[in-house]
């Protein structure tokens, strides 16, 4: 049983001018076995929360704390956080030319598991995980994310999730840009990871569509850089009907199954 605890987190983004505060006191506690959906309008700071948890250098934590089973996550380097059991599936996975996917996956698994996986079982494991996500085997020899379509990138994020088996996974708009088939495949991948046992999921999304496939235990509404309301799955249904207007004072909001 693990706990990811975020307390009064304030984060600014570093710009050429003065830093701009994006997160204004986020409180969130996720325990293993739970799936939390964080829903909010564009610009509410959802992705900033995701990148801050992963330790992106562009974001500066000005106050508050993040702990994983009592350990100070904010004191860890980016790679230490990953090795401690945090995983961020990115909205925009980065292309790394010249580094093959297979080399990358093996380097990551070696780092996270503390030793290089045995070649024979590793190859089998990767092949199986790729097949589960409908990824052609040729992708193993392609450069990391280079020239991948949006959907291919998202599948590969979930591939990494399934191979690295973190304690907590933060999925940042993993559903955006996916067609219905890809959404189903990716969601099944996330559900398989959830079924491996004691893991927690933070699902960041703008739309309710993905919640049909990945059922959340808790739904949070994110606005103005913090959690403004929390509830059960019924909260998502309310958002589907009424949008974010109640939280932002602005019309418009959730589009059901919407595409951007």
């Amino acid at each position, binding site marked *: 049983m693990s706990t990811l605890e975020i307390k009064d987190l304030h984060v600014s*983004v570093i710009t*050429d001018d003065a830093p701009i505060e994006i997160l204004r006191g986020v409180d969130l506690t996720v325990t293993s076995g739970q799936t939390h959906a964080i829903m909010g309008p*564009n*610009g509410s700071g*959802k*992705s900033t929360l995701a*990148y801050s948890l*992963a*330790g*992106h*250098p*562009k*974001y500066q934590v000005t106050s508050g704390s993040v702990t994983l089973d009592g350990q100070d996550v904010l004191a860890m*380097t*980016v*790679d230490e*956080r*990953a*090795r401690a059991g945090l995983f*961020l599936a*990115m*909205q*925009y*996975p*980065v*292309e*790394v*030319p*010249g*580094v093959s996917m297979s*080399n*990358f996956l093996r*380097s*990551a698994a070696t*780092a*996270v598991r503390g030793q290089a996986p045995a070649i024979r079982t590793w190859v089998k494991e990767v092949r199986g995980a790729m097949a589960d996500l409908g990824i052609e085997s040729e992708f193993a020899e392609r*450069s*990391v994310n280079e020239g991948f379509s949006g959907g291919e990138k998202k599948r590969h994020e979930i591939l*990494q999730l399934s191979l*690295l088996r973190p304690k907590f996974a933060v999925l940042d*708009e993993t559903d955006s840009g996916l067609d219905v088939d890809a959404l189903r495949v990716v969601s099944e991948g996330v559900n398989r990871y959830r079924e491996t046992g004691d893991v927690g999921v933070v699902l960041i999304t703008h739309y309710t569509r993905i919640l049909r496939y990945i059922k959340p235990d808790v739904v949070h509404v994110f606005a103005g850089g913090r959690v403004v309301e929390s509830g059960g799955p019924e909260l998502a249904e309310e958002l589907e009907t009424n949008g974010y207007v109640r939280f932002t004072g602005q019309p418009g909001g959730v589009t059901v199954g919407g595409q951007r």
Partner: protein
Amino acid sequence: MAAPTDTAEQTSLDAGSTVVAPAGAPEAHSHVGGRTVRPTAGSHLHPTVSADPEAHRVPTGREEVWRFTPLRRLRDLHADAPFGDGSVDVDWQQPDGVRVAQVRGEEAVALRGASGFVPTDRTSARVLAETGSAVLVDVPAGAVVTEPVVVTVAGRDTATAEAGHVVVRVGAQAHVDVVLVHEGSATLAQVVELQAGDASTVSLTSLQEWAGDAVHLSRHHLSVGRDATVKHAALTFGGDLVRVVATVDYAGPGGSAELLGLYFADAGQHLEHRVTVDHDATHCRSRALYKGALQGEGAHTVWVGDVLIRASAEGTDTYEMNRNLVLTDGARADSVPNLEIETGEIVGAGHASSTGRFDDEQLFYLQSRGIPEDVARRLVVRGFFAEVVQRIGLPLVADRATEIIERELALTGS
């Protein structure tokens, strides 16, 4: 919601110049830096073309072609350092189907300018005028040499300047891969000529694996035959000062030249590569791809790529690219692509140059998967060079280059 794209550490520049003269200009000339020069010379940047050393002034460092080179470190190679005979050993492997020999006397003299090369500076003129021998790699027409020809030039000391002349002569429709390896300590002035016969496929790779005290001025000239495919690669790792100047011209239509380069400069090293492609025939192709990494105080690299498309060179297809990765503070990469176009009837012409630090987004992504920073940096640098290594396509060269890059990366633990 935008992903973070921190490009503050990354500078991208297009420092090149493009000169376009309208087709059918009344007088064939081009403008370079405000001067008008005749393009009939070997290149607009080498206005003096002569086999006579005295026709070339001793460079002062103010000349365009010498402006980046620290002349005082050249041990007078650019001037009149007397050439010795004996501190450099040449050895080779000779596969079937090719003759490799150190020739002397009249045969050596006859090879001067075998590729059509006429010296463009005092040093290359002196090399041809004064060397009594030449290393000849001779591949008869139609021969297909499956094993690479490896010629090793090993220096024993830097006290005396040495001159070397290498000629690779490949007959029509022949195939050969030649690898020239330089190692040890030397003060070497060199001319390397490649004559690629019609429809031949040739690769010539020059590896500079010198010890830290070597000084090497190397002048390469490639003559690409009709429908010939030539690959040229310069890989420079060692040496105090290494300057490789390669020029390409086409002996007929349909030729293709791929110019590849890879360099890794450490503290205090000056590594300079210049390529000049003179498109004077129709339907020819050229590609240049040079990638370099720099680390340490005073590491300096220079890349200058000149492409000239003459009025006669209709159907030309050219692209040149240089990328530099600056790994530490205190290093400097100069990158100057130039493109001069005298006809609009071409397939394509372009260039790109970028010099930057590590891409923070790539590092973040790799680290976010648990990969420690030093391992992530190595993955990125290996990946950066992988494209060039793959394009060279010789396992022998790939293995050596990979090994040296790993050693370089271990130096600063970057």
